């Protein structure tokens, strides 16, 4: 839903971005925030190689092991902690970002699924398909056990009722597939794409799938719960008698359905638009979406679409620099990655609760509409909550900020404060201090008496304070 906050405007740089700023920009967009190590690495290897590595996650390492699939009693907090740690530490940053993107796209909530194990299974299925094809993704989600529970697919009994009729199908999944998962409620020309009839016919086609209530919760097709008659969906006939193949037919029909623009399917437009909103700008123009959608192809090649996005002018122009707003999870992770905090602080789980308070709880979407976006994270109370979150991370007991300082290359070891400040300014605010603050951050805080240019970097409390102030700047909440 909308909010009364002012709409976000891009934090545009006034002049063209430098190569160094582009490095920071790519790190901000393809990862969960700039870490000092990756900032150094991208300068070495170059952006092109960095992109290709991120698009080929198998060449990167992920230190966070998968959870065993032979235990079924996970708590929601366990799987949330597991994923947060993975998003924080994995080198496969884009893969995790895409997994989060699809988690929001196919928004599912444990409050109705009531089975963290199945939420975990869904997460792994999403990760497997995250950089592959949309066709495979949609097929997997259609028969994903958590999804079947979440949108009542497993309650969709449309079989013969034994008395001359058929049971009424449950339309919930069919409606959301069309409205949220593949086409959107409106076409490019503003004309409604599908009708209530299509939803109802689709519900009959999706009918019959059930989740075994016992571990490992096998998904099976029950022909007696399926409506085996003909269906007419979006003007295409699905002949009766095909049983579970109806799922494939539905996906074929949906993915082939044309948009108002020749050569672009409605599905390509919808998915590419969502990807652009996540990676480029919240309000893309249709012509840009259609250009990117050329890369979607008949099966929805996600990697090709991302490659096209990253190579596009729109991705790199100054007006789209830092125009996206960090959601609470993004703000949390980018702070962790900046500070290189030890994730296993004794009570890191309280941070998960605080993300939930701000409206972003992993594995627990309130509704199929997913999380809000952009400036909507900035209602009045949220601003204060966000400031307090980054403050708490910077002042986490046991955190040693001098470890970060030690990694900053300096050329004047006797008075390193200036160089350390400029370096931290790059990692947090892309080198640009807010104009109202100007040099105050440096002169009136970092090296203020009784410290000095030569001693400030040796005082952990002063470095903490500097990091607290840098992350409190609104620019840190943008990426």
């Amino acid at each position: 839903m909308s909010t009364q906050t002012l709409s976000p405007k891009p934090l545009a740089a006034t002049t063209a971005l430098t190569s160094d700023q582009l490095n920071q920009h790519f790190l901000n967009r393809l990862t969960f925030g700039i870490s000092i190590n990756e900032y150094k690495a991208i300068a070495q290897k170059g952006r092109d190689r960095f992109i290709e590595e991120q698009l080929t996650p198998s060449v990167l390492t992920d230190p966070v092991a998968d959870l065993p699939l032979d235990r079924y009693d996970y708590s929601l907090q366990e799987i949330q902690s597991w994923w947060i740690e993975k998003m924080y530490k994995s080198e496969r940053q884009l893969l995790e970002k895409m997994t989060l993107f699809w988690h929001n796209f196919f928004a599912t909530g444990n409050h109705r699924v009531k089975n963290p194990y199945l939420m975990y299974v869904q997460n792994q299925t999403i990760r497997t398909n995250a950089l592959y094809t949309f066709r495979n993704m949609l097929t997997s989600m259609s028969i994903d056990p958590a999804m079947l529970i979440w949108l009542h697919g497993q309650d969709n009994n449309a079989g013969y009722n034994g008395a001359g009729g058929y049971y009424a199908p449950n339309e919930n999944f069919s409606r959301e597939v069309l409205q949220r998962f593949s086409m959107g409620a409106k076409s490019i020309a503003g004309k409604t794409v599908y009708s209530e009839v299509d939803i109802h016919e689709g519900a009959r086609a999706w009918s019959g799938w059930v989740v075994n209530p016992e571990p490992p919760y096998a998904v099976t097709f029950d022909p007696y719960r399926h409506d085996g008659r003909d269906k007419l969906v979006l003007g295409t006939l699905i002949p009766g008698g095909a049983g579970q193949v109806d799922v494939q037919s539905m996906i074929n029909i949906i993915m082939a359905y044309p948009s108002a623009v020749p050569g672009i399917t409605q599905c390509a437009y919808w998915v590419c638009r969502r990807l652009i909103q996540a990676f480029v700008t919240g309000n893309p123009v249709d012509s840009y979406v259609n250009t990117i959608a050329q890369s979607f192809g008949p099966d929805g090649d996600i990697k090709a679409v991302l490659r096209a996005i990253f190579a596009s002018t729109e991705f790199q122009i100054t007006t789209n620099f830092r125009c996206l707003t960090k959601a609470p999870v993004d703000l949390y992770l980018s702070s962790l990655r900046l500070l290189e905090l030890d994730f296993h602080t004794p009570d890191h789980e309280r941070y998960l609760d605080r993300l939930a308070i701000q409206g972003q709880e992993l594995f627990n979407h309130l509704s199929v509409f997913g999380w809000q976006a952009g400036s909507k994270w900035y209602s009045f109370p949220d601003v204060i909550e966000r400031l307090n979150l980054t403050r708490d991370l910077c002042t986490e007991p046991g955190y040693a900020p001098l470890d970060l300082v030690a990694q900053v290359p300096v050329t004047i070891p006797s008075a390193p404060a200036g160089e350390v400040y400029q370096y931290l300014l790059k990692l947090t605010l892309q080198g640009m201090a807010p104009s109202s603050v100007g040099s105050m951050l440096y002169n009136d805080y970092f090296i203020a008496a009784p410290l000095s240019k030569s001693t400030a970097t040796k005082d952990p409390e002063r470095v903490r304070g500097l990091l607290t102030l840098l992350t409190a700047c609104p620019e840190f909440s943008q990426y």
Partner: protein
Amino acid sequence: MQRRQLLQFASLFSLSLALNSPARANTEDPILVMVYLKGGNDALNTVTPIDNVQYPAYQTMRPNLAWPLADLIPLNSTLGLAPPLEPLLKHFDAGQLAVLLGTGVPRTTPSLFAHNDQRTVWETGNVTSITPTQKGWLAQYLTNYLGGSNNPLLVFEGTAEIPQLLSSDTLYPTGAMRTLDQYGIDLGGLTPEDQQLRSTVFNRILGYAPRSLTLYPTQWLRYGNTISDSFDLAAQTEPTVAYPASDLGRQLESVGRLIQANTGQRIFWCELADFDTHADQNNNHPGLLADLAGSLDAFWTDMGNLGLHNRVVVVTYSEFGRRPSENSALGTDHGMAGMNFVLGGKVKGGVYGSYTPLNWLVGLRYTPPFYDNLATTAGMEFYNIYATILQKHMGLVNVQSFFNMLNPTKPYTVTPLDFMV
């Protein structure tokens, strides 16, 4: 300590603070409380036909979900309240509860039955341009008639989510219930000297509003102070009744205490979620109705004890009703006509409007696709409900010009109804 810190920041903007003291409340101002039933409340299982023509049709269409006839609480000869709504009966008998039936959005609305689109229509009053960025009808009323942008104490919403109903280009503050103790900023620092240095620089960061950046507008800080003050005043009050410890009960208790403290809020918004009962409805819907009835009953009794009935109107709304026929999952899918409750001292209690006769629809239920639903009509347009409340409770004389403003491209004619004096 934390709030002190904020006060200190806010004192930078003390000019505005002087304008926004909680003492500005006018003790005669009418108050509107909106209660959103999220997900599409099943009207037919909220107020159910009980006469010997309609009840059998209802039972035929809902073999598993129908309330037993004997359990329904008669409102008149043809309609009964669902059993969990029993706490509302005394307010109906007292003539303060209007039950509006067959309510909804115009059938011309695109994406009929989509949660967000229909909610957008209900919350913006705009039936032609249905987008999430459209301004809310109450926000426009606030801005144009109550001086919305100048008074930080007008609105309170009970949940974290800010509804489109209250969305506007004009920035005006709201207080969300979860933030009662979250208005402070503490920047850390081990010594007073360091704390002072941090505050000085941070004040400059907050004062920073370049043309390209509108995050952290300074208004938030001065509003934060007045909202915080009004919460402090509310915290000193004691409700005159025990509210249910439920989701809606807690929200309405906060509303009751803010009204009792007379801090000046005129518009309140609360939400009760999970009405999207596609499956297993009988294990979910009755509990939601019980929360609704228990919470409204406590609130209304509280207001009565405080002598405030004539100042307050409570309106429930939901994006749509649900289909007359149940589905195979023991639930109901998205439907056409809904219903609203209106509770108020100036309300003329009774039943208004009607459902499409179920005995007309029952024969259509196996006629694919869902003709029983499409043949249902929403005879009472949502905007006439708003027009009634704006004119007869909030005192807006020319309601037509207000609704013309909401619908500049295709204005519709509004007619205040007679459920209010």
